């Protein structure tokens, strides 16, 4: 028998019955849901300072305006604490911005995960993990804020597999993908300040990521060899970048962030260097069937660049201080969706 003294006074079988009931309604992402109560939904709305019927945004292609109460219900089901709700609200508002163009990344066969990057004081205040295992399990804010957004996508926006989510394979990041930027020991200003917010503002950035490529380098002591790996990840033969000049997200973890900081390179230098190196020969693309046509002699010496605009290289810091790992998350799109940053109204 385990300890009884701190356990809730209710019968666990009753709670399990509720969990099973919610499964049966078809409202789950496949994992157990927390059954909402009047109190838990009201607490979300109070902390979020929104009325139940308030519309948070409209997705024109889905003919849907998103009511705050529905988002609150999904946030409770995801396991959010009420104090997380302002971040969820900001994420939903971001989702609704025209430039994010929700319908594209949410519906596509590409199956992108909506990545949430939390910046500003609310990250540490809520305990949103920015360090060890920043993309992985073990932290309630990361897991439940990201999950709340996906549940709202499923239940409110009908983004259901095979229906309005046509992902061929999808991604584990579609369960939940939320982390905070590590703003300590940063080479530059954090992402939200770069995007025009004040350091004391809290924000959440939405980014539709196609996949995650680990960037391992234990020998580089200067930016060039390290960034060559990032460029290679951006322009690998399987990347959709070949056609779309997509955005790409580079996540610098501790050791690699140190290399960049010590070098004195600016964010713009890094972005431009990656742009210049994210290229392959036209012949390589043709051999892989990524470009049409016969391979001509000049294709062997003609570069095709996969990015054009340095601003499309998004760079954040996250992850543990130790280890030679970073990550590249090639984007789902560019003209079809743009990363957006939304103020958290806490």
């Amino acid at each position, binding site marked *: 028998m385990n300890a009884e003294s701190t356990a809730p006074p209710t019968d666990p079988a009753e709670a399990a019955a509720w969990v099973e*009931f919610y499964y049966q*309604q078809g*409202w789950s992402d496949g994992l157990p849901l927390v*059954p*909402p*109560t*009047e109190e838990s*939904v009201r607490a979300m709305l109070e902390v979020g300072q929104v009325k139940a019927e308030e519309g948070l945004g409209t997705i*024109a*292609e889905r*003919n*849907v305006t*998103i*009511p705050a109460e*529905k988002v609150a*219900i*999904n946030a*409770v*089901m995801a396991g959010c604490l009420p104090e997380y709700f302002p971040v969820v609200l900001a994420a939903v508002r971001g989702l609704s911005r025209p430039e994010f*163009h929700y*319908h*594209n990344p949410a*519906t*596509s*066969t590409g199956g992108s995960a909506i990545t949430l990057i939390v910046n500003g004081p609310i990250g540490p205040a809520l305990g949103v993990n920015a360090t060890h295992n920043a993309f992985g399990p073990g932290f309630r804010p990361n897991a439940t804020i990201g999950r709340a957004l996906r*549940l*709202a996508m499923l*239940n*409110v*926006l*009908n983004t259901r597999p095979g229906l309005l989510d046509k992902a061929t394979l999808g991604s584990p990041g579609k369960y939940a993908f939320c982390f905070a930027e590590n703003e300590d020991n940063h080479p530059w200003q954090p992402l939200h300040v770069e995007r025009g917010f004040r350091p004391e503002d809290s924000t959440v950035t939405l980014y539709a990521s196609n996949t995650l490529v680990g960037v391992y380098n234990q020998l580089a002591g200067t930016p060039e060899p390290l960034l060559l790996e990032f460029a290679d990840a951006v322009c690998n033969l399987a990347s959709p970048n070949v*056609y779309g000049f997509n955005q790409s997200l580079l996540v610098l973890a501790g050791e690699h962030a140190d290399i960049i900081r010590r070098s004195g390179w600016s964010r713009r230098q890094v972005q431009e260097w990656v742009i210049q190196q994210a290229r392959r020969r036209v012949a390589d693309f043709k051999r892989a069937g990524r470009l049409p046509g016969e391979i001509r002699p000049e294709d062997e010496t003609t570069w095709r660049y996969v990015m054009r605009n340095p601003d499309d290289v998004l760079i954040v810091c996250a992850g543990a201080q130790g280890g030679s790992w970073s990550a590249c998350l090639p984007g789902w*799109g560019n*003209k*079809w969706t743009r990363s957006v940053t939304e103020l958290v109204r806490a």
Partner: protein
Amino acid sequence: MRRTVFDPTLPLETQEFAYAPRPGSFRGLRVGLVENTKFHSKELLCKVAERLEQQRDMRLVSVNRKQSSGHAVSQETIALFQQQVDIALAGVGD
């Protein structure tokens, strides 16, 4: 005992619509294409239009390119098609 169940879904709003009257013949009808920017979209639609011209005596009169595959057809294009087009064709063409 009655319990409150909080439904996290949003009811789907439905709208009634009517199909346009069916033409008795394809002969001479004007065709408009909605190209969605995907890799083979325009090529595929133009092939279909070409066959309609050859085999059904129809006429290709307008090719519209959407902002992206996920964007709705613009209101300007809808207005244009209402004036100039009898049949609109759209396709994926990945």
